[in-house]
């Protein structure tokens, strides 16, 4: 591991590593804290899908893109929202259903949004955002920008028909979209092997001659490299890329998942490859950070998340008349109220 790290270390600055580490730690602290609030205090409700284990993907994608590039994902959206800069306060407040949340308390865990941060959500229907993300890219192309879209979806979502229609359209029109399949090996209780004859999801791109590759998702360096290459291709108007990024979720599918479909040994094996632990070790071994620096980051993450909990708890719920707000842009819409 260390050797591999040193081999590419020259490409990335110390700051990059520190940024990666802080972002990944921030996401994890956010998730673990929120999950505790869900379980212990019941202040967060609904479905809750944690990003724990997948943080290196968010980190690598961030350094390979610019702020104007769009991210769109499914319901496992907390990590990518935080990465794009949707404030931690507003993310936590959203989980609490508060008016100060990043969707005014209307979206909840599955529907984080931050238009200003170019984060287009937060989608609950498996696979839907593969098509929507393609449309976001169509608009960038149409407007003549050099922005690209990172369109995230799970291994389970890869079995929806919309993937094929989207791939075909994106190749036909050479749209600036990078399809990122976060393959954590499970769709709820169903392993990848049980959903298709094709176990290597990246191979699905081949039918459309879309450049496609498989990427180690436990390391922000490998993620960065693959995404940067794809982003360059897209910015230069050479069309989409499919990246199958191999990762693992340490938590259940959602909070209520008893996880009988996998063994503790399997989870432990992946925990030994924990992206945050590996990164920390690499940074310390490679003298890119001191113990003190790492500690300082850890503490800062704890403080930021603790402050977000306080912010969320002290924020008000939306007022009841919000029920009929944000349904139409049209302010005079005549709702049926009786």
């Amino acid at each position: 591991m260390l050797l591999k790290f040193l081999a590419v270390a020259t490409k990335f600055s110390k700051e990059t590593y520190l940024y990666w580490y802080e972002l990944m730690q921030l996401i994890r602290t956010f998730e673990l804290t929120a999950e505790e609030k869900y379980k212990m205090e019941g202040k967060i409700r609904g479905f809750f899908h944690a990003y724990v284990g997948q943080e290196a993907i968010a980190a690598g994608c961030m350094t390979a893109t610019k702020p104007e590039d769009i991210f769109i994902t499914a319901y496992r959206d907390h990590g990518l929202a935080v990465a794009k800069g949707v404030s931690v306060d507003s993310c936590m407040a959203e989980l609490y259903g508060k008016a100060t949340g990043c969707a005014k308390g209307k979206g909840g865990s599955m529907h984080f949004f931050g238009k200003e941060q170019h984060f287009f959500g937060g989608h609950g229907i498996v696979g839907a955002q593969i098509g929507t993300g393609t449309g976001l890219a169509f608009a960038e192309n149409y407007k003549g920008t050099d922005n690209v879209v990172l369109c995230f979806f799970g291994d389970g979502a890869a079995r929806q028909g919309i993937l094929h229609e989207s791939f075909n359209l994106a190749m036909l029109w050479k749209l600036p979209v990078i399809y990122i399949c976060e393959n954590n090996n499970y769709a709820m209780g169903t392993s990848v092997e049980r959903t298709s004859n094709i176990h290597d999801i990246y191979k699905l791109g081949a039918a459309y001659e879309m450049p496609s590759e498989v990427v180690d998702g436990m390391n922000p360096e490998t993620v960065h490299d693959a995404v940067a290459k794809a982003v360059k291709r897209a910015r230069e108007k050479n069309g989409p890329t499919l990246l199958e990024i191999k990762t693992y979720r340490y938590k259940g599918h959602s909070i209520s998942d008893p996880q009988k479909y996998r063994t503790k040994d399997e989870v432990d094996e992946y925990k030994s490859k924990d992206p945050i632990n590996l990164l920390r070790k690499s940074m310390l071994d490679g003298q890119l950070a001191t113990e003190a620096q790492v500690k300082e980051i850890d503490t800062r993450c704890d403080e930021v998340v603790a402050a977000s909990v306080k912010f969320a708890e002290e924020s008000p719920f939306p007022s009841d008349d919000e029920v009929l707000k944000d349904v139409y842009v049209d302010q005079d819409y005549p709702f049926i109220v009786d």
Partner: protein
Amino acid sequence: MARSIAFREALREAMSEEMRRDERVFLMGEEVAEYNGAYKVSQGMLAEFGEKRVIDTPISELGFTAVGVGAAQNGLRPVVEFMTWNFAVLALDQILNTASKMLAMSGGQISCPIVFRGGNGSAGQLGAQHSTAFEALYANIPGIKVVSPSTPYDAKGLLKQAIRYEEDPVMFMESEVMYGDKMEVPEEEYYIELGKADVKRPGTDVTIISFNKMMKVALSAAAELEKEGISAEVIDLRTIRPLDMETILASVRKTNRLVIVEEQWPFASVSSEISYRVQKDAFDYLDAPIRRITAADAPLHYAPNLVAAALPDVPRTVKLVKEVMYLKK
């Protein structure tokens, strides 16, 4: 002999009994087999029937719905589970453009005996995309039937009927929040005909019509009203399409007042349809305008207070009943 079983067990018994009886019946859907069902409705069914007949699918709603629709046309009697009806929207093409129209398009040659079932409507703070109640939407479609039971007993009898005797596509709408509800259900086999409403509570002063989990609101409101000396008759529709107008009209002719409680969006909802038909066929019997409580005319938001404000509840139902009775407060 009756014993107390949960809603999910009643559904499971219905499917298992029909599968034991008829080789052509099989169950297909996401997580129905190895995971024993996302909501444990199909628990143990893989063990009993094997993987030929209890079939896990990938997340491919349009695809597996189409497979079910094709299989139904070709001699099988599929039961297709949607994890929730929200996800069936992806498969609407197969349901609306193929299943519902096969018999008509083929001049009566090819029917489509298939049952689609799953959780429907809101289930707490699940946000806009996991909370839609679809009865009215599907009830708009000629060629299919729509069932939406409120009790384990009804659910079992209706589901058995749908699987065994219905030759047309049936949409069977359950509720995630009712799967744990328990009730005495006979051990002996029974069937309940589709298209028959059930008077769950007889009364004389006012009729309250509801279905699915909103029946709880209707019945609780009736109990409240009784304390104030108001006798409400509560009708559980059980089947939305076809509507049992006979039972509805008989009740309205007796009570002369009607309140409908449902979780649909208001525009062209089940209450809209009932109101039209009641005013047409029992106009002279009505002593007050028909009133209704529906879900708010909006997607369901996440915040707990917005969920509460958007859905029908007991106080609003009680108030509305008093309004149609022209009682003060």
